[in-house]
């Protein structure tokens, strides 16, 4: 190396191109934000990417459109318009089913339609979203404490059971009955969360395994219970329980508007959990244990007690989600009463970055996808499973922000912390 090279090597590298924000125009600043990939941008791009893949799936599985691709080179316009038609119809239905149908709006404005029809899509969205808020919060809270609560499904199922049984077995006056039934759901879920919690605290049994196993146990228990005397609807031979008393049901608008008090409860609980995490002593312990259990233990925090209590609260939240589902929407127990709310709750929590209000927004997005998906299935004939695929893809892209960045050639963000990369094992 010559002396010149050595001198050059010791010079400071050229200053980075970083003009202060004041000196840039608003537009430049906006473009800079987009380019630098902060959390919101990655979320939006993930949704876009997922929808593109969804579009490919739609095209590939439509026999007619596939046929037009056979002679693509001869007449590309057929394939392209065919694809565009089927995809846009599907996604338009997704929008109309979840937010608003422009036709219904115009009909209401010129008097030929009802206002209920206008708000039905939003009502559907919120109806589906409500239980997801609870199961999402359950997973998110547990994650903050360093625990994987994959058992939201089982805890929700037990919550469904206890709430429903309280709903049809206890003769109580109106308001009290609802509260008691909700409480029963909460307690049921808490119990189902307590088991993996105490096992983790006492024996170190990994909660991923115990909660997954308990999911299936709860599901089997439900199928057995529905057919027992005292639970099964005496007027039916199929697997359905007695109907919950109307005094225990969550009030809704009625008719086509299924949205019920569940969503109100969801918002209140979200606020409560947000307060819990940031302002309560327990929340402090949860965050400390989640970030560094060894340091928390050295500072006197009982990690075992925190884990147990955390799983109890997480279970209670999921149980509340099950209770909301059965008292607000389903009104009776069936083997599939809890649907997929536990697993969807996991996706919702990841999408919401394990933060309470983020989880709420993510739950609403998922509720919208589900509501829109229903309409997409009825009107465009696209299977509802596509919604599952979209949801999974969005979460994959969120959880791997590096992947999205690579695809879109975005620069790494300096400030935003993307993804919940808590790589742990058993």
């Amino acid at each position: 190396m010559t002396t010149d090279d050595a001198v050059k090597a010791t010079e400071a590298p050229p200053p980075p191109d970083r003009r202060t924000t004041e000196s840039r125009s608003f537009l430049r600043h906006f473009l800079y934000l987009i380019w630098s990939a902060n959390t919101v941008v990655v979320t939006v791009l993930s949704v876009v990417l997922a929808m593109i893949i969804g579009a490919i799936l739609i095209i590939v599985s439509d026999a007619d459109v596939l046929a037009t691709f056979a002679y693509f080179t001869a007449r590309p316009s057929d394939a392209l318009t065919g694809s565009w038609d089927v995809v846009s119809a599907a996604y338009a239905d997704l929008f109309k089913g979840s937010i608003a149908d422009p036709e219904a709006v115009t009909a209401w404005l010129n008097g030929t339609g009802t206002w209920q029809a206008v708000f039905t899509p939003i009502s559907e969205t919120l109806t589906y979203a409500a239980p997801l808020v609870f199961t999402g919060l359950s997973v998110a809270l547990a994650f903050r404490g360093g625990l994987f609560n994959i058992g939201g499904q089982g805890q929700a199922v037990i919550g469904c059971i206890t709430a429903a049984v309280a709903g049809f077995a206890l003769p109580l006056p109106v308001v009290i009955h609802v509260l008691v039934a909700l409480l029963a759901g909460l307690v049921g879920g808490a119990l189902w969360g307590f088991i993996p919690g105490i096992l983790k605290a006492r024996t170190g049994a990994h909660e991923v395994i115990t909660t997954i196993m308990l999911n299936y146990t709860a599901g089997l228990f439900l199928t057995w219970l529905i057919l027992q005397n005292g639970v099964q609807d005496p007027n039916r031979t199929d697997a359905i329980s007695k109907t919950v008393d109307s005094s225990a049901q969550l009030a809704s608008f009625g008719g086509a508007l299924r949205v019920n008090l569940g969503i109100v409860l969801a918002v209140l609980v979200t606020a409560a959990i947000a307060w819990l995490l940031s302002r309560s002593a327990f929340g402090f312990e949860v965050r400390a244990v989640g970030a560094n259990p060894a340091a928390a233990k050295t500072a006197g925090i009982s990690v075992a007690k925190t884990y147990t209590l955390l799983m109890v609260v997480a279970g209670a939240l999921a149980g509340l989600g099950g209770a909301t589902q059965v008292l607000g929407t389903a009104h009776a127990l069936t083997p599939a009463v809890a649907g997929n709310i536990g697993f969807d709750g996991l996706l919702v929590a990841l999408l919401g970055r394990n933060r309470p209000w983020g989880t709420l927004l993510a739950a609403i997005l998922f509720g919208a996808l589900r509501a829109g998906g229903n309409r997409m299935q009825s009107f465009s004939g696209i299977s509802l499973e596509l919604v599952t695929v979209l949801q999974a893809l969005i979460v994959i892209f969120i959880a791997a922000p590096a992947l999205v960045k690579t695809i879109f050639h975005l620069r790494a963000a300096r400030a935003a912390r993307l993804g919940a990369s808590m790589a742990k094992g058993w």
Partner: protein
Amino acid sequence: MLKLPGDCAEGEIPLRLELRGITKRFGDLVANDHIDLTVEPGEVHALLGENGAGKSTLMNQLYGLLQPDEGTILVDGETRIFRSPRDAIAAGIGMVHQHFMLVPVFTVAENIALGAEETRGGPLGWLDRRRNRRDVLETSQRYGLPVDPDALVENLPVGAQQRVEIVKALTREVDLLILDEPTAVLTPQETEELLTVMRALSDTGKSIVFITHKLKEVKAVADRITVIRRGRTVGTASPDTPEHELAALMVGRDVSLEVDKGPADPGRQVLKISGLIVDDDRGVRAVDGVNLVVRAGEVLGIAGVQGNGQTELVEAVMGLRPARAGTIHLDNENLVGMSTKRILRSGVGYIPEDRSLDGVVREFSVAENLVLDTYDRPPYGNAFRLNPGAIASSARDRVEQFDIRTSSPDSAVSTLSGGNQQKVVVAREMSRPLRLFIAAQPTRGVDVGSIEFIHSRIVQERDVGTAVLVVSSELDEVVGLADRIAVMYRGRILAIVSPDTPREEIGLLMAGITAREEESEQ
């Protein structure tokens, strides 16, 4: 003792290594800044520097674990690029790491064979166990490093594990061996053996690069010494250079190795440990019947090589590890069986030895870390809620009092330097009334300025009447701080001596040789 092979083995080609202008950056931090280094064939070359000076980073680049941003590596005059350890090994360079790279559940032979296994063919490579064992025994005998090929590594003592690492490097037919802080966990006896091995290896023509921060060892075995400070070479020296000059090169100014303190005024017995027995994580007896007393207003230092039970002793006192037998009395209460929280509440302050692991929560802010053990006590909060206002104002006060260099009390603690993180821990523990203060390795990995500050605060705490227990593997620190020194070896307190005791005697005690044994040998 050790047998030395008489002559240079056949096929030994001495290796000359040259590093020119090696530069490595990690973000804004320049870990190596245009470092030059030359190692002559058959030379024992010591790389001397403080913790964090950049020595390991430099060697990791030489071994192919990292790639230099600038600079060249020349082996025997030829430029080489090492993209992985394979390339380094192929060039004849081997490395024994500070934290052993041994798979605990494998045998010695499996560990040594790993990566260079002898196989009998087949697509998956059917292992030839006999040849692997034979290779181990051959190398072991050739260089006089006894190892048992069938022993499980996790059952071996530290010195034996290190021998396995050296044999592992030698079986790869290396001509230059890098040893990264090899004596950090050895007893003085094992250190002596290792230094002899190093001299023997260099006599057979191998070059050795020996990374350390211990002046005495460097003077005992090195042919040449390169001193590194803050990522730069600050000079080469010969082993005759006086210690204080070497130390000055290492830290950059005249370092006072003395701690400024007056005489102690011990009062009542605050901590009384009787017959304490504690097991370590593997169920092996770590503390084997310890009796100890610490009085108010004095500093009791526990000296000893890391791994003789000091860690477990302190953890047992703090309730972080169960005691199998014995009692631990704080004034009149027996702490055995009490929760850590209650022990802390009873007026005990604790600085754990590994602050990044169990001292601070890196993701929490400075303010939150300052209340990590008091968040549910007034004024910071109660059993249900926190009091953010009180937490914030107290944080501001303490940041000032303890000179914690941070841009704001709400910054995450991970943005602070090691020394400032330690000051956060010290501030946290010293900001409440204490009867007993326990500090384990209080200045490990801390810059010199913060070391002086922390030492002065410890002496201050002693002077207001707190009983202080300091555990440190740096003998200088113990001698400087303590009013009485207890030497711990294999789970027992061998003797309690005054700090004026000659260092050689303390060294012998640390190696397990008591006065009685010495006398009986004469």
